[in-house]
Structure formats: C-alpha cells, structure tokens
C-alpha cells in the first residue's frame, strides 16, 4: 500500500469515526452534567463504609479491587516482557560493566547535576513512601508513590554512573520486590477467601477515625503492596534499558 493510498483509507475511516462520534455525542449528557448515580452513591457510602477519605483509592483498592489486580498484572507482565525482549541475543556479547579504557579522558558529570540529584534523592524517597502509605487519606496511593520512589533510583544513576545504579538496585532484589508487591495484593485477596469471605473482602479492622493512617483496613495495605510493585517494575524497566544501551554489544 502506498503512503498516499494509506492516507486516503485513513481519511475515509476517520470520516466514519467522526460521524459516529458526533452521533454518540448528541446522546451524551453535557460537560458538567454527570447524571450518576453510581459515582454519587460511592461518594456517599465510601467514607462511612471503608473509613477511607480518599474515595479514589477506595474505588481502586476496594470497590474495583478485582480490576486493579488485573491492571497490576498488566504492569508486571510488561516489566517481565521488557526483560525478555531486551535479553542478550545470539550473536551479542555483554561487556563487563567496567571502564575498558581507563586512561581516556572521561567528561565528569557536572557538579550541578550531581548536587541536585543528591539533594533530591532523600526528599523523593520520603515523598514516594508517604504517597504509597497514605492512599486512604488524600490524593495519593501506590501507583503514584511507586513511580516517584523509582525516580529516586534514576537520580542515583544521574548523579553517579550505571555501576552505582546497579549496586543500589540489584536485579535479584528488584525482581523479588516486584514479585512480593504483585503477589502481596493477590495474597490479601486469597486470605479473605481462606477466611470464608469473598475475594478481596476488607477483613482488617477499619479503625474509627476516617482518614487516619491506620484506618481503612486492606485499602492501605494493598496500596502499599502496589507501591512496591510499581517502584520495582519501573526500576527494572529503566535498568534493562540502560543495560541494553551500555553493556550489550554486537559480536561474540
């Protein structure tokens, strides 16, 4: 198919799509007129029912908990996929992770980058940890916290070098953390089944004060495990991409 023919086929398809979209738009309630009732019901019952004031987290880890298990395993599979796709192929060799030309003049990382990265590493770990452990109270949770925790390790790479990054995040440890994160979520669900309750039932004490860190039972715990899983998955992905760029070479 030539590029111009492809473009015409696309334009014809897009015209059909636009027609159907506009047709659908006519039946949609206007912007700002969300008719409910599902979201409104959740907003009203979530706080008394789960003692979590962050209703988005309550939806993610309680009402839609089963869907979130699936989404977490998409993440798990994608990280595993990156490691498999970026493995050392036939006809490639892995360089040792040492400087092979020790006498050459390597431009040093600028002091500004190094200082800023070192300055930010500590606060980033604290913010990531705080987000991952406060899903029940405010707009935070394992997904956001995990990504921010992973950036701390990327800052280590920026301020030092690949070897230091590898020392801070050995592949075995990252793999185990990722598995614990993904498995922990599923295990909480199975524990409820073992107690004779529905899968992912919130079986932990909910606490009395809505929005307290100790409130909301399994919501807080699941969010923590999701944080572990997301952080480990992203460190793994970044590590694999860096390894591919820096260590894998053509030839035997």
């Amino acid at each position, binding site marked *: 198919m030539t590029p111009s023919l492809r473009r015409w086929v696309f334009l014809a398809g897009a015209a059909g799509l636009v027609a159907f979209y506009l047709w659908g738009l006519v039946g949609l309630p206007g912007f700002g007129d969300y008719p409910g009732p599902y979201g409104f019901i959740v907003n009203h019952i979530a706080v008394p029912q789960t003692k979590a004031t962050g209703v988005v987290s309550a939806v993610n880890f309680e009402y839609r908990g089963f869907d979130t298990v699936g989404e977490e395993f998409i993440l798990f599979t994608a990280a595993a996929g990156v490691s498999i*796709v970026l493995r050392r192929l036939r006809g490639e060799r892995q360089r040792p992770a040492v400087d092979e030309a020790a006498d050459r003049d390597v431009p040093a990382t600028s002091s500004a980058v190094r200082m800023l990265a070192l300055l930010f590493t500590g606060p980033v770990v604290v913010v990531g940890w705080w987000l991952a452990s406060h899903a029940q109270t405010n707009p935070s949770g394992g997904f956001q916290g995990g990504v921010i925790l992973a950036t701390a390790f990327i800052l280590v790479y920026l301020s030092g070098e690949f070897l230091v990054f590898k020392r801070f995040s050995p592949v075995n440890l990252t793999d185990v953390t990722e598995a614990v994160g993904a498995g922990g979520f599923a295990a909480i669900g199975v524990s409820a089944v073992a107690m004779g309750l529905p899968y992912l039932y919130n079986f932990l004490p909910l606490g009395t004060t809505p929005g307290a860190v100790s409130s909301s039972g399994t919501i807080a715990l699941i969010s923590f495990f999701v944080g572990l899983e997301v952080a480990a998955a992203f460190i793994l992905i970044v590590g694999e991409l860096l390894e591919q760029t820096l260590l894998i070479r053509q030839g035997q």
Partner: protein
Amino acid sequence: MQYFPFVVVAWILAVGLYGIVTSRHLVHLIMCLIVVQSSTYVLLLGVGYVTGAVAPYFYDIGVHTPAVDPVVQALALTDVVVEAAVTALLLAFAVQAHKRFGTLDPQELVSLKG
C-alpha cells in the same frame, strides 16, 4: 461550550491516529499511540465532571459535599501507570527491531517481513 471537552477528545484521538498512519519512525509511532491514549484521560475525566463539585476527597469536608465521579478518576489513574509500562515494552521492541532489520521505518519494516 457544553460539549467542548468532548470535541477536544475527538481532536486528540484524530491527531494521534493520523500520526500513527503516516509515521515513518517506530519511536514516533509509539509516541502517537500515547497521544491516542491521552484522549481517553480527557474523555474519562470529562464524563465524570460535575459543575461546581469538588474532588472526591473528604478528609476535611463533609461527606455530603457534592463531588465529581471517583470511578472515572480511578480508571484514569491506573491507565496512566499501565500506559507508561506498556510504552516501555513497545520501545524495547523498537530497539530489537532496529538491531534485527537496521531500520525504524515501519513502512520499510513491512516490506522486509510481511
């Protein structure tokens, strides 16, 4: 302008699709896919919006304060993270495709392997 956000959704979707169809570089194609997916965030958040309502967090406000739909927000949240991981997987495929075929042009890749 009651439907303006939904028109924006259609525009983002169309721009992304056009980019995918005419792409001459796999990395560009993956970025276009992200643009297509971004339209779903605008759609989800637009559908659940309630005029004059607050975010669905009741830490320091009453439970009966009008708030927007939390379900679509939860969907958008997981969507963002999963998209980032899937993008990494696609970029890994692009790296290997470049190694194997020596090109990142999807139209040349088609002529190499059907």
